[in-house]
């Protein structure tokens, strides 16, 4: 599958990241960890080669598009603070990340969990439900009023969101749990 690689490499020179930092990275099917500099921007996780702990190139050497994925804490004999990113379509293949302390990897996991477009979308739905509820209308009215992103499968999406929330019960993220709590409160 082709993609706009050259253009993205240029973009990667100048992004202002939501979060960035150094992590050791072991892609699936590879044996060792390599130190990389990561920059998270929206749902795109760019990574750059490093030299002695700092970025050694202006352009990213890779990018992970964070959709349909989740993070979890991992136990790895050699390092203490490890988490993985696993994509829904291929749950056996783990991207492993090793950090410097627990706080750091928790924050990365939270940021990654919140990065996907789908997450933003469901957050919007939750907010609209809450707003509608405050106004004393049912959430169904809230859905029909909003045509900002006319999705072709909007009603199906509503059901899917509920399923996704169920799925996300296994996420270690605090944010995920809070979202579920609120969603359950407003869902009828």
């Amino acid at each position, binding site marked *: 599958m082709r*993609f706009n690689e050259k253009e993205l490499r240029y973009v990667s020179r100048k992004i202002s990241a939501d979060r960035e930092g150094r992590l050791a990275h072991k892609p699936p099917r590879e044996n060792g960890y390599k130190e990389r500099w990561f920059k998270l921007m929206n749902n795109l996780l760019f990574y750059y080669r490093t030299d002695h702990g700092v970025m050694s190139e202006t352009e990213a050497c890779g990018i992970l598009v964070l959709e349909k994925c989740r993070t979890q804490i991992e136990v790895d004999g050699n390092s203490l603070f490890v988490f993985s990113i696993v994509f829904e379509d291929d749950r056996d293949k783990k991207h492993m990340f090793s950090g410097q302390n627990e706080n750091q990897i928790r924050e990365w996991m939270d940021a990654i969990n919140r990065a996907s477009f789908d997450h933003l979308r469901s957050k919007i739905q939750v907010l609209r439900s809450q707003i509608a509820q*405050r106004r004393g209308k049912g959430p169904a009215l809230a859905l029909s009023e909003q045509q900002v992103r006319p999705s*072709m499968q909007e009603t199906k999406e509503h059901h899917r969101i509920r399923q996704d929330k169920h799925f996300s019960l296994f996420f270690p993220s605090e944010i995920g749990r809070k979202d579920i709590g609120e969603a359950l409160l407003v869902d009828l």
Partner: protein
Amino acid sequence: MRLNERNLVSYATCNSPVDKEGYLMKKGEINKGFQKRWFVLKGNLLFYFEKKGDREPVGLIILEGCTVELSPEFSDTFTFGISFQGPGCRTYVLQAESQEEMESWMKAITSAGYEYMKLMVAELNRQLEELNRIPDASSLEVIPKRSSAPAVAVGSLIDFGGENNQAAASNYETASAKRFNPFNQELSPVDEFGARPFNPASEFLSKSKDRSDSAPIAPPRKPRAVTTSEFHVPMPLTSNDISRPKTDVYLKRPRTFLEMHEEFGRQIQSRIHRSMHSSASGS
């Protein structure tokens, strides 16, 4: 540059929400002719297939740091471009069959940006807070920086010399006979309830009067307070605006005196603060 391609191939055809799909003619990069492709837009990911129903996309355009604009060379057809800045970077030239189709795609791709969604979340949060009657004393009301019309920055993380786009735009806009620029109308279409949906993308479409503020710097990730010479007090949406949302969400509306007072007070304080700093560093 590595990419988690296999995950994306699955994502393209999975049941996640599709924002827009349809056939468009796409101009080849090497082969200069147009080829028909089935396009599927999911968030900021624009996939294209050889035809509808194919299991694997031919390609993907990740919509970050790009601009959507009319195509100058094809002004007598419904052709538009998704352009990326940078040496050797290409513009994806796409062609629709009608004005409506072209307009619809241009708007969909423009509002595909993550920034748009984040604005939406911020706005809804604000509405919720208002409803809860919690005075939001901690943050300044802000408006996003306007980029120059009619080229619209998608992703808006990089702003490469908006002036160039403006010049080019004015040239071919007058030349075009068949099509018109959807970004010249700031209003989004009215839906079946007679309401205009909230469209913060209209913030990016501007007939920018303030050309002095045209420095080609990267727009800030977080919106910043306007620093023009006049006080600008942007207004959040009220409950009335939900049923009849205005396209320009920052229209003035009556605020309580207390809110205005607080807002002015903060602005005055920040100005004092800034002028103290600049005089401290010497002039």
